[in-house]
C-alpha cells in the first residue's frame, strides 16, 4: 500500500469537511446579536485560561519596565543625594551671609567667588563685583565667619582679592577682650603652615590662652574694628624676654567660600562691627 494511503480523503472526511465549511459560512452570516454572545461565551470558557496567561505575561512585562524605570529613578536620586551635603553647606553659608548683611545694615556689596582651577586659587581669587558696584582697592572682604582678605585690584565688574593666606597679607589685630594686640600674618609661605595665621608682636609678659578670639583692631584705617580673624591654638615661637608669636586658626578657609561681602567706604576706622558677626558663626 502506498505511503500514507490511509490518509486519502474518504467520504466521511469529505462530509466532515463540507460540514465544517458550512458551519463557517453560517458563522460568518450570523447577525451581531448572535455572534457577540457566542464569541463572548468562548472567551469566558475555553479561552479564559489562555487570556489569563496572556494578561499575566503582559503584567510581567509592564512590571519589568516599571522596575527598570524605578531603578533608574533610584539611581538618579542616589546621585543627586551625593550632592546634598554640599548643597546644605552652601545653603547654610548663604543664610549666614544673608544674616551678616542684615546686621551690617549698609556699606557692603555681596559678590560671588569665581574660583579658578589654579594652584594659587586659595591665595588670591576673583569676585564678581567691581568698580561699578562701588568697590575700591583695599576694601575689606568678609564672610559670615570672619575676615577673608582685602581687595587688591579692581576692574569694572570684577575684583581681585588677596586672602589671608597670601604672603603679603597683614592685619592689625586685638584679642576680643582687648587684652593683647599685635599683627596677624600668614604663618608659613609653603607647606601646611600656609593655612595658619600667626599673631606677631605680643609682649613677652602677656600670655594669650588657647581659644581666644582674635579680631581686627581697626588701627591703620583699612579694616573696621571687630572682624573675627581666628582663634588662638597655641604658641608659635618666642623671642626670649621680648615678644611671643601665637598660632591662629583662621575663621574661614578661602577654598570653602562661594560668596563674600566686600565692605565699601563710609565706615571709619573707629567703627566697631563685631556685633554683626554672631558668636555661633565664629567657630572657636
Amino acid at each position, binding site marked *: *500500500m502506498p505511503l500514507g494511503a490511509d*490518509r486519502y480523503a474518504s467520504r466521511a472526511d469529505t462530509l466532515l469537511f463540507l460540514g465544517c465549511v458550512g*458551519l*463557517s459560512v453560517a458563522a460568518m452570516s*450570523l447577525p451581531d446579536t448572535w*455572534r457577540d454572545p457566542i464569541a463572548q461565551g468562548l472567551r469566558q470558557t475555553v479561552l479564559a485560561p489562555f487570556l489569563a496567561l496572556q494578561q499575566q505575561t503582559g503584567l510581567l512585562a509592564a512590571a519589568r519596565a516599571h522596575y527598570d524605570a524605578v531603578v533608574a529613578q533610584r539611581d538618579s536620586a542616589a546621585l543627586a543625594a551625593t550632592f546634598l551635603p554640599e548643597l546644605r553647606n552652601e545653603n547654610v553659608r548663604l543664610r549666614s551671609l544673608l544674616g551678616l548683611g542684615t546686621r551690617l545694615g549698609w556699606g557692603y556689596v555681596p559678590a560671588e567667588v569665581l574660583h579658578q582651577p589654579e594652584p594659587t586659587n586659595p591665595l588670591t581669587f576673583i569676585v564678581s563685583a567691581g568698580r561699578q558696584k562701588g568697590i575700591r582697592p583695599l576694601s575689606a572682604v568678609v564672610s559670615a565667619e570672619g575676615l577673608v582678605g582685602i581687595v587688591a585690584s579692581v576692574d569694572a565688574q570684577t575684583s581681585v582679592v588677596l586672602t589671608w593666606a597670601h604672603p603679603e597679607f597683614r592685619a592689625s589685630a586685638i584679642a576680643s577682650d582687648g587684652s593683647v594686640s599685635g599683627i596677624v600674618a600668614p604663618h608659613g609661605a609653603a607647606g601646611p603652615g600656609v593655612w595658619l595665621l600667626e599673631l606677631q608682636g605680643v609682649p613677652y609678659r602677656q600670655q594669650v590662652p588657647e581659644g581666644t578670639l582674635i579680631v581686627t583692631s581697626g588701627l591703620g584705617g583699612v579694616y573696621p574694628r571687630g572682624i573675627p580673624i581666628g582663634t588662638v591654638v597655641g604658641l608659635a615661637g618666642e623671642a626670649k624676654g621680648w615678644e611671643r608669636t601665637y598660632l591662629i586658626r583662621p575663621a574661614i578657609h578661602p577654598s570653602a567660600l562661594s560668596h563674600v561681602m566686600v565692605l565699601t567706604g563710609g565706615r571709619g576706622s573707629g567703627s566697631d562691627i563685631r556685633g554683626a558677626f554672631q558668636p555661633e558663626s565664629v567657630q572657636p
Partner: protein
Amino acid sequence: MLALLIYTVRAQPGRSAAAGFVIGLLRDALTPASFGAGALAHTLVGYLSSWAKAVFFAENVLVNGCLFFAGTWLRNLIVLLASGRLGGAQLGWELLVWSPIQSATTAAVGIIALWMFGRWVRVRRADA
C-alpha cells in the same frame, strides 16, 4: 496555526478540517469583527494541508517547512478575503509583505519544532 499544520501532517483530512474549524472558531472569538472567517480559513487550510501531504509530499523537514509557509499565507489570504475588511493597496501590502514575513517566521519555528519533536509526529505507515 502551527499546531494545526503539525497535526495535519499525521491526521486524516476530515479530522484536520474539524480541528481547523475548532481552532479557527476560537481565534474568531478574539476578533469578533471577522467572526467565521478564521473558522473557514483554518478549515480549508487543515483539509488541504492533510490532503496534499498525503498525496504529494514526502516526509522531509524542509518540505514541511514549505507546507507551513504556504498554509499560513493561504490562511491569511482567506481571512482577508472572507472578512472583506481590507482593500486595494492595503490588501496588497498585507498579502505581499506582512503575510510572507509571518509565514516565513511560522515556517522557521515549525521546522525547529519538527526537528526537536519529529519522532512524535512521524507518519505511521499502514500495514500492508
